[in-house]
C-alpha cells in the first residue's frame, strides 16, 4: 500500500504538540459540510459494496461463505498476512535496534538504504525474483519476498521511536539488576511499542491487500480470487462477496490496532542511549541490516537490468507503446494528485484545527481508503459506475476517483500536519492586523503549510503510479499504464518484454521521490 521512498516527516522530529493548535470552539458550519462531503466520497466504494452484496440475499450470502473455496482463500490470506507481519515485526525491530544502538560506518546512508525497499512495488520485486528463479511459487516464496519488501514499515518508525526513547529507564533497570535483554524488554519496549504496532499494521494491511506479488508467485489469496472471479465474469456476485470478506479482515486489523494503541505516558528522561561500537559482531549486524535491501531492491533491480540489457530485449522495445504508457501513467498520477489534495484540503483543515466527535468521524471516514484494498475499491467502483453513472464507466474519471479514494489518507495526513504546524495564533494575529479570513488563510496559513500540501500531492502521485489491481479493473479500454503492462507481460512469463516497462516505472517513480526529498530537505532547514 504505502510506497514511500523516504521516511515521513514525523520520523525526523517529534510531531508538534497538537493540543495548542486547536480552538475550543466548534468548526464553522460551511467547513464541516464541505469536509463531510469530501469524506463521503471516500465511503462510496465501501457502502456500495455492502449494498451490492446484501442485494444478493442473506441466505445465498451465507451459502457462498461456507464454500470450501472461499474458506481456502481466506485461510491463505490470513496465514500470509500473519506470517509476514510477524517476521517483519521481528526483522524490523532488530534492524531498528542495530541502526540506533550500534555505531556502524555510514550510518545515514544505511538508514536511507534500509528505507529503499519501500520504493519497490511488490510486483516489481516478485518480477525480479522470477527473472532469476522462474520456478518460484507458493506460500514460502510469497512470504519471503513480501517480508523483504515490507520490513522497512517497521524498521523506520521503530528506529525513530528508539532514538527518542529515554535511555534513563533502561539504565535504571540495569542498575536494579536486570540483564541487557530484560532491561530492554522492561524499560524500552513499552516506549517503542506503539511505533512497532503501527508499523505492523501497515505491513498487515499491505499483505492483506497485495495483489501483484501473490498473483505473480501464484499463491491464491482473496485478492487473487476476486480478480479471478471478476475475470470469469459470469459470477460477479462471488467477486463482490470475496471483496467483502477481505474488507472485513482489513477493518478487523485496523480496529485491533486501535484497541492496542494504549496511551503511553511520555517519559521525562532526556538522555538517549549512546551508540556503541559493533565489536566482533559487526559483520553479522551489517548482514541483518542489509538483508531486506538486498532481497527487496538489489536482486530485483539487477535481474531487471540483466534482462533489459540483453540485445534481444533492446531490439524488441516497442518505443511508441512505452512512451504511451509513460504518458498515461504520468497523466493519471498527476490528475489523482491534484484531485486528492483538493478533496483532502477541507478534511485536513478541519482535523488540524478543531476537535469533536463529528470531526473525528469525518477524519476517520477520509482515512477509509487506508484500509480498503485496491482491488476492492476497483471492483466496487466497477459496479458503482455501471449502476449509477454508466457514461463514465471505462473512462479515466473512475480510475482517478479510485486513486483519490485509495490515497486520500496520505494527502490528508501530510496536509493536516502541514496546517497543524502553523500556529493558530498566526491566524489571529493576521486577522488583528487587518486581513480577512481568506486573506489570512492565503497569505499565512496556506503559505506556511505549502510544503505539507506539496508532500501530500507527491505521495499520492507516487502511489498512483505504482497502483496495480484497481488500475487493472478500471482502466479505460486501450489505455495501459506501466504497471499494467509489466504485470500482463510477467503473467505470460515474457520477462524480457516486461523489462523496459519495469525500468521506466522505477525511473518515473523516482521523479516525485526526488522532489519529495528536496521539499523535506528545505522544510528541515526552515
Amino acid at each position: 500500500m504505502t510506497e514511500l521512498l523516504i521516511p515521513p516527516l514525523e520520523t525526523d522530529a517529534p510531531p508538534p504538540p497538537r493540543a495548542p493548535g486547536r480552538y475550543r470552539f466548534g468548526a464553522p458550519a460551511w467547513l464541516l459540510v464541505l469536509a463531510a462531503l469530501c469524506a463521503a466520497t471516500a465511503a462510496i466504494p465501501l457502502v456500495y459494496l455492502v449494498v451490492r452484496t446484501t442485494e444478493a440475499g442473506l441466505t445465498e450470502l451465507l451459502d457462498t461463505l461456507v464454500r470450501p473455496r472461499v474458506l481456502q482463500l481466506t485461510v491463505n490470506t490470513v496465514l500470509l498476512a500473519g506470517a509476514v507481519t510477524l517476521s517483519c515485526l521481528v526483522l524490523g525491530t532488530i534492524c531498528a535496534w542495530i541502526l540506533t544502538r550500534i555505531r556502524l560506518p555510514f550510518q545515514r546512508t544505511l538508514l536511507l538504504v534500509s528505507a529503499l525497499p519501500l520504493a519497490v512495488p511488490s510486483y516489481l520485486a516478485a518480477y525480479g525474483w522470477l527473472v532469476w528463479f522462474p520456478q518460484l511459487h507458493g506460500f514460502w516464496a510469497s512470504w519471503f519476498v513480501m517480508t523483504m519488501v515490507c520490513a522497512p514499515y517497521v524498521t523506520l518508525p521503530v528506529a525513530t521511536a528508539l532514538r527518542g526513547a529515554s535511555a534513563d529507564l533502561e539504565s535504571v533497570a540495569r542498575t536494579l539488576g536486570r540483564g541487557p535483554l530484560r532491561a530492554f524488554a522492561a524499560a524500552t519496549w513499552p516506549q517503542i511499542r506503539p511505533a512497532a504496532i503501527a508499523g505492523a499494521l501497515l505491513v498487515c494491511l499491505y499483505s492483506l491487500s497485495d495483489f501483484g506479488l501473490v498473483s505473480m508467485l501464484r499463491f491464491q489469496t482473496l485478492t487473487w480470487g476476486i480478480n479471478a472471479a471478476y475475470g470469469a465474469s459470469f459470477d460477479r456476485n462471488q467477486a463482490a462477496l470475496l471483496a467483502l470478506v477481505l474488507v472485513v479482515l482489513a477493518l478487523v486489523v485496523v480496529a485491533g490496532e486501535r484497541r492496542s494503541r494504549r496511551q503511553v505516558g511520555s517519559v521525562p528522561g532526556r538522555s538517549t542511549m549512546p551508540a556503541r561500537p559493533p565489536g566482533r559482531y559487526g559483520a553479522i549486524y551489517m548482514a541483518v541490516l542489509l538483508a531486506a535491501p538486498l532481497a527487496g531492491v538489489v536482486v530485483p533491480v539487477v535481474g531487471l537490468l540483466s534482462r533489459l540489457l540483453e540485445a534481444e530485449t533492446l531490439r524488441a522495445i516497442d518505443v511508441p507503446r512505452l512512451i504511451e504508457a509513460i504518458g498515461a501513467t504520468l497523466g493519471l498520477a498527476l490528475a489523482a494528485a491534484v484531485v486528492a489534495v483538493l478533496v483532502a484540503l477541507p478534511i485536513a483543515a478541519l482535523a488540524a484545527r478543531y476537535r469533536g466527535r463529528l470531526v473525528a468521524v469525518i477524519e476517520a471516514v477520509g482515512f477509509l481508503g487506508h484500509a480498503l484494498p485496491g482491488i476492492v475499491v476497483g471492483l466496487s467502483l466497477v459496479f458503482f459506475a455501471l449502476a449509477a453513472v454508466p457514461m463514465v464507466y471505462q473512462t479515466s474519471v473512475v480510475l482517478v476517483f479510485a486513486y483519490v479514494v485509495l490515497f486520500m489518507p496520505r494527502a490528508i495526513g501530510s496536509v493536516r500536519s502541514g496546517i497543524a504546524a502553523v500556529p493558530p495564533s498566526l491566524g489571529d494575529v493576521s486577522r488583528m492586523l487587518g486581513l480577512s479570513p481568506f486573506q489570512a488563510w492565503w497569505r499565512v496559513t496556506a503559505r506556511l503549510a505549502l510544503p505539507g500540501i506539496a508532500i501530500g500531492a507527491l505521495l499520492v502521485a507516487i502511489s498512483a503510479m505504482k497502483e496495480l489491481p484497481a488500475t487493472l479493473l478500471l482502466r479505460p479500454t486501450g489505455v495501459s499504464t506501466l504497471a499494467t503492462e509489466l504485470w500482463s507481460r510477467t503473467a505470460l512469463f515474457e520477462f524480457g518484454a516486461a523489462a523496459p516497462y519495469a525500468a521506466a516505472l522505477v525511473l518515473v517513480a523516482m521523479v516525485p521521490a526526488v522532489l519529495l526529498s528536496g521539499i523535506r530537505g528545505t522544510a528541515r532547514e526552515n
Partner: protein
Amino acid sequence: MGWVSIEALNVAYGERRVLDDVSLRIPRGSLVAVLGPSGCGKTTLLRAVAGLLPVTSGTITVGGRLVTGPGVQRAPEKRGMGWVPQDASLFPHLSVGENIGFGLPRTRQSDDLYCEPGETAGGLFAGVTRRRRAARSRLTAPLPASPRAGARRDESGTTGTDHLTPVPITPDRSRQTSRAARIAELATLVGLAELVDRAPSQLSGGQAQRVSLARALAPRPDLMLLDEPFAALDPLLRAALRTEVAALLRGQHNTSLLVTHDQEEALSLADFVAVMRGGEILQFGTPADVYERPVDPWVAGFVGDTVELNGVWQGGRVDCGLGSLPADWMGAASAPADGTPVLVLLRPEWLTLAAPSTERQTDAVTTAIAYAGHDALVSFTLAGGLVVRARVAAPDLPRLGDRLTLGVRQNALAYPVA
C-alpha cells in the same frame, strides 16, 4: 465613560459560562491589567474584545463605536485593535521588517506609501482598502483631546456622521509617511533598527516579543491587547522588558488591555487592575486600591501575602492575637454590631518591630526567617501559639529566638467571617 467600555459581557461554551456578566471601562490612554489565576476567563475576555470569538451577550464599544453588541459582531480585522500574543507569533516566512509592516496597508498605485488613516496616497481613488475605510469610520467618533488624536483632529471635524458618508479628503503631502519609514520608525522605537532584515528564527525571545509589539503598534490601533506577553520569557528579561514596554505604550499614548496571572506585573505596570476569578471581575481599581483595600480575603491573598487572624469587632477596632487594633470594615453591609466575630487581615509589611518592652504582654518570638536578600518574611509565634509573618527589611532582621514586640502601622482590614 471610558474610551473602551465592556458591558454585561457573557461568554459560554455550551453549558459552562466562561465570562459571567463582565463589565469594564478603560479610560483613554491608560493601561488596564486583568489579573487572575489561569482558567479564570481572562484570555477569553481578551479574545472576545478582539472579536476572535463570539460572545453570548453583552456589548463592547471602542471610542463610541459599537464593535460587539446585539446583532453586531465586527470582524477582528475591522476593529482597529492591536494584538500581542503570548508567544510573539511572528510570521516565520517574513523578515522582521516585513513582520512589522504586515498590518500597514499597501496601496495599489504606490506600494510603499503608507498614509495616516483617512488620507489617500497619490489621488482620489488610490487604495480605498477595507482597513482604510475602517480607520476612517473610527474617526467619526467624538474624540477626547489627546496628543495622539491631534494629528487627526481636522478630519474628525465631521463627527457623528454615518461611516458611509465620504470623509473630506485633505491631501497633505507633508504628513504622508512611507511604509518603509514607518517600519524603520517602529523598529527604532523597540530598539531593533539593525535587525529588520533578520528572519524571526534568529531572534531571542525578548527580541521576538518586541517585534510583535512593533507589528501591533504599526497600524496605530485604537486599543492594544496584550495576552500575557511576558509569560514565556525568563524572569530577569521579563522584569526588564515589561517596564520598557509599559513606558513605550505610555509614550505612544496607547490605550491598552493587558492580561496576566502575575500580580507583580499587574501592580507595577497598570494604571488600573481588574481582578478576575471564575469568569467574574471581583474588583476594579488602582493598583494601590487593589492591594491595600481588597474587596475580599481571596483577592487579598491573590494579589499579595497576607496575615490572617480571627478577631472580634469592637466599634472601629478589632480584638485579635495582636491586641486591639484600629480597623476598617470591608464587608458589603454597614459595620456590624460590637462583639461580632470577624476575619482580620493585614499585609506582612504593615507589621513593625520594636524592642521588647516590659509593660506590653503581646511580645513575640522569632521562629523562622525566609530570607530573600532585600528583605525577609519573618515568622513570629505569639503568646497564644499563633503564628504571624512580617516583612522585614534586611538591615533590621532579628535573629531566630529573639523576643520582640510587634506593632501595626496601618488600619487592619476586617471582613465578615465566611
